[in-house]
């Protein structure tokens, strides 16, 4: 479904990604794990078009993403929950969700999507007219995910959903991510929280210093020093 | 002493000497008048440049300093005060006013753009107030009008212009100048390096105001009659800005080039396309802001680069390829 081929990306003169290649198949829940600054968010930015790679390509369902402007990516079925959620705090919960369904095809089925999101995150329905800025950390993350779901994505990208959340909330959120995946949305999860990510995902890639250094399932990855220390540490 | 430096100094000496000799060689009064205007405009552009070009604080109301200079000098001179104290007073009054506004503004860490639009408002306030308090025309003292002598005025103004450029040069080359440029580039980074942004901004403001006031004093000495609030009008601010930008702010020679270019072009345009000259300047200004922020000086540098690269092409091919 999603294929990254030898992506090289720069921030100005600084190379951030070196020959990144990875694949996500339909229905999978794949994790991209690695330490802080490894290039995880950068990789996501390349996929969503906020950062253009200098070489290599991103293919989504055999559609080459290189030329697409960032705002078109959503129409193709890829939706991202950015790091920290980045909800529109000055607007209400409902308005945030509505904006998630901004693109034409999503707007048509907005009410349906809303129902779906409320099913997964009933708390959002309770607070639907509240200003998003008044929500707690966990609720904001839920809103961010819910907002991304409103565009009825085929592929959902999550950037550090556990960030800043208490462990019990992390468990809760991850449970919902699992549910979302079960309902047919392919998920690519970027995480620093190795433990939670590995428990959730079918497969994971390990990224360090802008390079993919390994991939596999749970047990395979434990052989990596960094993974192990993160897991046990 | 490099060859380049010797040539520069020689050119400078020749240039100044030539300017000094003009009144003895040239008969035409209109040429001397033109040169005087160029000199005054040079003073305006150079003084603006110290705050705007080097320190990065854009002042849209430089006419305030110019106007205050004309006001102080004129009032004193027509009351019988000798010339040089009057001129000095022009500069001093401008600085006093600048500090009155600048200290609270910079102290409160006013963002650069707030300062800029604030200067616009300030100049307007002065213009209206002076127009209300002194709504009349000011004339040079009778004796000066009856025995109006252009040459001594030319020399005084030439001296003032050279003084202005000299002060600018010395300031810019000093450590203070370095600090000002650091503030322009990134105020926070400069602070973290130990540059006291407030001090540098205030200093630049003071010098800019003083020299701008001197330019005003020069005008007050030169111009026979004008409305008191004429020197506070927006065109003085706009023209200054245009000259500094088009010439090349952030350089010493830029304002000079800008002033010459401006006056000459204006004369030419007025003769050929009449009142459209302001439109031409507006377009030039926009083009500079969008495409050539370094002004004519930058354009000249680029041309030089292209020319030297052409003639040295053979040399370059011998050098190893650099990764871009």
């Amino acid at each position, binding site marked *: 479904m999603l294929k990254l081929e030898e992506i090289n990306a720069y921030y100005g003169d600084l190379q951030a990604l070196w020959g990144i290649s990875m694949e996500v198949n339909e229905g999978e829940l794949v994790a991209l794990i690695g330490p802080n600054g490894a290039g995880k968010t950068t990789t996501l930015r390349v996929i*969503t078009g*906020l950062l253009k790679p200098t070489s290599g390509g991103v293919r989504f369902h055999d559609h080459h993403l290189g030329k697409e*402007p*960032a*705002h*078109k*990516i*959503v*129409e193709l079925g890829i*939706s991202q929950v*950015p790091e920290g959620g*980045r*909800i*529109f*705090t*000055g*607007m209400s919960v409902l*308005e945030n969700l*509505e*904006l*998630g369904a*901004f*693109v034409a095809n*999503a*707007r048509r089925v907005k009410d349906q999507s809303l129902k779906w999101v409320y099913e997964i995150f009933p708390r959002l329905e309770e607070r639907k007219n509240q200003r998003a800025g008044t929500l707690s950390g966990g609720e904001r993350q839920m809103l961010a995910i819910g*907002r*991304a779901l409103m*565009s009825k994505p085929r592929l959902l990208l999550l950037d550090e959903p556990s960030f800043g959340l208490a462990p019990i909330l992390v468990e809760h959120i991850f449970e919902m991510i699992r549910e979302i995946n079960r309902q047919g949305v392919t998920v690519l999860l970027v995480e620093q929280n190795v433990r939670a990510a590995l428990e959730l995902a079918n497969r994971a890639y390990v990224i360090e210093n802008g390079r993919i250094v390994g991939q596999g399932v749970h047990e395979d990855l434990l052989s990596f020093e960094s993974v192990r220390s993160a897991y046990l540490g | 002493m490099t060859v380049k430096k010797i040539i520069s100094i020689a050119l400078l000496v020749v240039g100044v000497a030539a300017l000094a000799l003009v009144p003895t060689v040239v008969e035409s009064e209109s040429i001397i008048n033109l040169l005087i205007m160029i000199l005054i405009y040079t003073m305006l552009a150079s003084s603006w440049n110290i705050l705007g070009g080097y320190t990065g604080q*854009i002042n*849209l109301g430089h006419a305030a300093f110019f106007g205050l200079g004309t006001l102080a000098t004129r009032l004193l001179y027509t009351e019988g005060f000798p010339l040089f104290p009057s001129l000095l007073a022009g500069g001093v009054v401008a600085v006093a006013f600048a500090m009155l*506004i600048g200290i*609270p*503004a910079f102290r*409160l860490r*006013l*963002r650069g*753009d*707030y300062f*800029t*639009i*604030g200067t*616009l*408002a300030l100049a*307007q*306030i002065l213009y*209206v*107030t002076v127009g*209300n308090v002194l709504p009349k025309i000011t004339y040079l003292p009778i004796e000066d009008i009856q025995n109006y002598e252009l040459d001594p005025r030319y020399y005084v103004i030439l001296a003032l212009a050279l003084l202005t450029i000299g002060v600018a040069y010395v300031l810019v080359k000093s450590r203070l100048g370095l600090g000002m440029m650091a503030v322009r580039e990134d105020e926070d980074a400069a602070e973290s390096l130990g540059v006291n942004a407030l001090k540098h901004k205030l200093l630049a403001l003071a010098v800019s105001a003083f020299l701008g006031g001197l330019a005003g004093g020069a005008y007050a000495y030169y111009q026979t009659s004008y409305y008191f609030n004429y020197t506070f009008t*927006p065109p003085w601010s*706009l023209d200054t*800005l245009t000259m500094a930008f088009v010439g090349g702010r952030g350089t010493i020679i830029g304002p000079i080039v800008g002033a010459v270019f401006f006056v000459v072009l204006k004369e030419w345009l007025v003769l050929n396309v009449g*009142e*459209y000259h*302001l*439109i031409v300047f*507006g377009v030039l*200004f*926009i083009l500079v*802001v*969008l495409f050539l922020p370094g002004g004519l000086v930058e354009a000249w540098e680029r041309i030089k680069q292209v020319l030297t690269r052409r003639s040295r092409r053979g040399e370059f091919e011998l050098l190893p390829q650099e990764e871009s």
Partner: protein
Amino acid sequence: MLAAVAQSLAFGILVGALYGLAAVGLNLVFGVTRFLNVAHGELLMFGGYASFWLFTLYGVDPFASIPLSILFLLLIGLLLYKVLFSRMVKLPEGDKIRNTLLVGFGLGLILQNVALRLWTADDRGITPPYAGEAFTILGVRFPIVRVASLVIAFVFLFALQLFLRRTYTGKAIRATVEDWEAATLMGINVHSVYLLAFVMGAALAGVAGTLVSVGYSIEPAMGMHWTLKSLIVMVMGGLGNMTGTFVGGLILGVTESATSILISGNYRQVVGLVIFILVLLFRPQGLFGTKEG
């Protein structure tokens, strides 16, 4: 005496509504795009001239000419955006504000002189047949034309708020103001949002211009004057706060009248500028704004 004061205050409110409308236009542009277009006043001036010539040449009632004025300014705004301002979209915020300020400066110069060449420096005004009519309440005279302008200004403010609150596009605009990258992830084309905000701001200036031409007078040099008024009121009202800005306009109008009575008519213009500087120094988030700057 009291009647004179009341009259002056009434006039203050009436003109204040136009200050508010003009400032709302600038606030929309600046709030969304961070373009500080100081040629805003010149756009207003062009709106006024559009209505003036429609009236003088074709007898179009000034209030009826508002849609045409809007159309005219939408086109001019589109042209200016495509040719000039779109080049500055990608700049970091500080540079963007500064460069658009400078470009606006040059643009204002150009527009002012184009108007001067085309239409001379003469004061122009529209005097429709009902110009002299007024209704009087408690001895205070309210010219119909100016009252109608107040109402129209209110209507536009209201319409704008509705647009921003209720429509998808309006919400997209508000989202872009908050976080343009997140907005992009929703599929919102930020460039389109910028363009829309810019031309809408220009259109509002045009409406204000039309109202100025019928209630007061217009001439090519008025641009700077109105830009300053818009800036003052925008800063008073606070960034992004449309209603606060409009109210700020009314406050300015009344304050000017009060100054005129208490000090002298000559200092009418000065008080606004002084308030401006005071607000900039001590309360840059505006009288009604929240700490954001």
